[in-house]
């Protein structure tokens, strides 16, 4: 949490720290990075602010069928990316998790991606 509310000068140093342990397995995973993408823009203004994609784009229904959308919130190995990395709000994360689990059940998303 300290990373999120860090002072303007901190983000450049706190960012690698925060992402280091989290992405120890899949290094710099792209799905987690994309929703946090606004963070890159935020750094320009000296503040990293993550916003909920669903709130911003006004996506009300998170449906298990749109794999394209769900895939952005699934890590390489098929894990659901935590809210603290993606910036999704609690309400939407709940719906998102449900949709991802439904999609896994019907083989649209993997339970665990094979290597």
């Amino acid at each position, binding site marked *: 949490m300290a990373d999120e509310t860090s002072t303007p000068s901190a983000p450049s140093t706190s960012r690698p720290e925060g992402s280091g342990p989290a992405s120890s397995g899949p290094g710099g995973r792209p799905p987690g990075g994309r929703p946090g993408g606004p963070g890159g823009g935020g750094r320009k203004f000296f503040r990293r602010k993550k916003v909920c994609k669903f709130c911003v784009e006004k*996506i*009300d*229904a998170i449906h*298990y069928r749109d794999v394209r959308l769900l895939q952005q919130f699934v890590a390489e190995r098929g894990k659901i990316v935590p809210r603290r990395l993606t910036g999704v709000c609690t309400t939407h994360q709940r719906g998102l998790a449900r949709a991802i689990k439904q999609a896994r059940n*019907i083989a649209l998303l993997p339970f665990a991606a*094979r290597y």
Partner: protein
Amino acid sequence: MQRTYEIMFIVRPDILDEDLDKLIAGLEGNITQGGGSIKSMEKLGRRKLAYMVKKFNDGNYVLLTIHADGSLVGEIERRLRVSEPVIKFISVRMDEEEKRVAKIKAIRATRKKLSAQPAAPAPAPAPVEPAAAPAATEAASA
């Protein structure tokens, strides 16, 4: 009580097109006979499965949106389970979700009106239209 359900199922990839149509027609017949109605039927086509199911790596996805009783859905699920070409299925109740989305949209619409009125009473009809337009596009995307 009639509710809206979505039934998605995967048919084995080596099935012939006629057999697939026959299977779907049979299922639709079951639904209508059981007192339900079909809102839409969509063949999503052949897709690669995210993991292996019954030693198949792809499958024909079919999506049925129906209006039916809970007991009828149970019966449909039983039929899907016993029908040999169907390798996987999922049934999801949609009515509550639809209601929730409709509510959110209604709230959003009223909020936009409130913000538009005190600022400028004269061009009030104008902001209403843009408010309606995104709602329509959202409906299309959803």
